[in-house]
């Protein structure tokens, strides 16, 4: 009988986490070169790690859904603070039973439909 010990399972998970992080960073640098440059490698890595942490807590597991979550975080901030309908978006992503890819797709489609690829900037008094 094949037995997989907890230590081995953790090693597999850590390896997968590392691969996901690398993949996210690669796509981040390719698709959002300006944001990647302004954050720097360390900042970008921190955002990728935050995305993975958020994805895990929200039961978002597929690579495509995690990348879409990263896109949301890059464009609207890790708390979606710049997103239209941010409360709805966060509530949707936090939904306990909906499948992860469905949640992310719903949110990205609705938000990107509103922004139509345009970036959000917060008005400040000194602007």
């Amino acid at each position, binding site marked *: 009988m094949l037995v997989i010990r907890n230590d081995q399972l953790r090693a597999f998970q850590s390896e997968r986490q590392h691969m996901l992080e690398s993949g996210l960073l690669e796509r981040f640098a390719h698709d959002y070169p300006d944001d990647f440059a302004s954050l720097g490698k360390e900042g970008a890595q921190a955002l990728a790690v935050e995305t993975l942490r958020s994805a895990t807590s929200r039961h978002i597991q597929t690579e495509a859904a995690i990348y879409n979550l990263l896109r949301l975080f890059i464009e609207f901030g890790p708390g979606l603070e710049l997103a239209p309908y941010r409360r709805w978006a966060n509530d949707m992503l936090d939904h306990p039973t909906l499948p992860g890819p469905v949640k992310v797709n719903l949110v990205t489609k609705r938000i990107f439909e509103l922004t139509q*690829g345009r970036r959000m900037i917060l008005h400040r008094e000194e602007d």
Partner: protein
Amino acid sequence: MSTHLVCPICGQEFECKGPHDGPHDVLSPMGKCPLEKGGIHVFVKDNFHNGVPKVKTVCNKTEPVTDRQGFAIFDQLPEATYTTAIDVEGSEDDVSSKYYASTRISVQAAVKPGKITIVEFALNEYGAMLVKLERTDGESELPPAKFTVSSLNHAIMDPTRPAAKGQAEYKQLKPTELYTVACELHEDSRKNFKLEELEKAGQTVTAAKVTPVVFRVTPRYWIELALIYPKNDKLTGSFQLGQQGQEARETDPVGREFLHVPDLQPGTVDVLDVVLPKSLEFESLA
């Protein structure tokens, strides 16, 4: 096979060379679409950063109200600076009676090509105050009174209100202001009741619940004394009074019809001594 499409944002034609056997993403962040138009997203939030619906907003000669999420969206705007404002007073009753603006309500928001400017406005929720009159002895019968609530920066509608069944409610007070609350007993009741405090300054309210402000009133026990002499009914003099082991002298220097002695303990009062005017003493001696 390629297809010519018209960009819904800039109106330019572009050629799509993607596979057409199913939907594909045309809103790539790497797209080369020259985004000429921008937009303004107005977000109206309350103290808890929740969106406030139905708030009237004004921008670019249109006046939409915020949606259920608290957003009003002004899209397809050319690059310029736009006066963007909210009008709480002009909004529906359930907004104007519940919220007020304590910070800016109008900004000059710049719109840049291909960008959406988020303009946030913050509203505060009104609070309410219940001013009450209570007796210190626990009895229920209350004297007629009126309350006045005032603030330096907030003019209240009908600031002075009669105490109906000993209380008056003030709605639409601002949690960001300090209020002074005063209580005044009716003239006829002041002989029989005494307020522990006439005024309470620095009172605040919260939006979460009605804030009670209580004035305590104590019943007053008193007697009236008179020196009666057939020749002259206005006599000066003094009385030595005793009650529960304590003594006090009450003097009437001007000769009133009755000498009112307030704030006694309930129970009996002993008149221990009466000092007559000098003239009467001479008269009686003579």
